[in-house]
C-alpha cells in the first residue's frame, strides 16, 4: 500500500497538528476541496491497511517543495537552484557572492509580495478586488454573489 507524500502530509497536518482543513490547505498551497479529496484518499488507504493488514509505504505522489530559495543582498532578487547537485555560490543576476538562504523568511516574503496591478472581477455582479499573485482568480469566489472571479482585462475582451 503506497501512501503518497501529499496524503501523508494531510494526515500529519489534520490529525497530528490538529489543523482544520482550511488551515491545512493554506499550509500546502492547495485549494480546500483538493485537500479534502486527498484527505479522503489518505484515510481510505490507511483504513484498508489497518483492516486487511497491509504494509504502508510512504512514497511518491505529486509534490513540489517550495524551498531552496535564495536572496541576493546586492540586487535584492530571489532565485532558486534547479540543479540540486551543485552549490549556490553567486547571484544568477548580478554575480554577487552576497547571497543568503531565505527559507526561514519564506513566510513574510510570501505575504508582502503577493500584490500585483491586476484586478479580479466578478462576472456576475461586477465586484472587484486586487489580484493576489499565486492565487488563481477562478479559485476565488465573489463575497457578494459567490460566483467565480476572473481577471478584469479578460472580461472586457470577452464583452467586445
Amino acid at each position, binding site marked *: 500500500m503506497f501512501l503518497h507524500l501529499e496524503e501523508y502530509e494531510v494526515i500529519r497536518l489534520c490529525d497530528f497538528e490538529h489543523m482544520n482543513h482550511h488551515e491545512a490547505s493554506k499550509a500546502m*498551497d492547495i485549494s480546500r476541496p483538493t485537500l479534502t479529496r486527498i484527505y479522503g484518499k489518505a484515510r481510505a488507504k490507511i483504513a484498508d491497511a489497518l483492516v486487511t493488514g497491509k504494509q504502508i509505504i510512504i512514497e511518491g505522489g505529486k509534490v*513540489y517543495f*517550495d524551498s531552496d530559495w535564495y536572496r541576493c543582498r546586492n*540586487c*535584492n*532578487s*530571489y*532565485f*532558486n*537552484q*534547479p*540543479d540540486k547537485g551543485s552549490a549556490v555560490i553567486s547571484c*544568477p*543576476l*548580478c*554575480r554577487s557572492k552576497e547571497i543568503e538562504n531565505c527559507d526561514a523568511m519564506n513566510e513574510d516574503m510570501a505575504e508582502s*509580495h*503577493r500584490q*500585483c*496591478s*491586476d484586478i479580479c472581477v466578478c462576472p456576475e455582479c461586477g465586484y472587484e478586488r486586487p489580484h493576489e*499573485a*499565486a*492565487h*488563481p*482568480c*477562478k479559485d476565488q469566489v465573489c463575497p457578494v454573489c459567490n460566483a467565480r472571479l*476572473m*481577471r478584469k*482585462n*479578460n472580461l472586457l*475582451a*470577452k464583452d467586445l
Partner: protein
Amino acid sequence: MKVAITSTGNTLDSKVDQRFGRCAWFVIYDTETGGIEFLPNPNRDAEEGAGPASVQLVASREVQKIISGEFGVKIKSLLDSLKIQMVMYKEPEKTIQSVIDMLKN
C-alpha cells in the same frame, strides 16, 4: 545560455514586467552571442492557464533562466521539473537594458 526576461514592451527601455504568465513581452537574451529577441506573449489575455502556456513558449526556446517579478503556484513546480531557474526580481522600475547589463558582468 539563454535567459528569458518578462517585459512590459518591445524596446530595451521597457520595464521588467512583474507578472510571468500574463506579461506583455518576453525578451530572450543569449549570453554567449549577445543576441536579443523580443517575443510577444500570446497568453497575456488568456482566461486561465496563461502561466503553463507561457512556460511552454519559453521552454521551446531552450531557456535556462527566467527573470520576472513573481511566479504563480502552477508554474513553480513546472519550472522546477524542467530544471529552469527562476529569478524573482521585484524592481518594477528597472529597464530591460539594466538587467541585460547585469547579466553581462
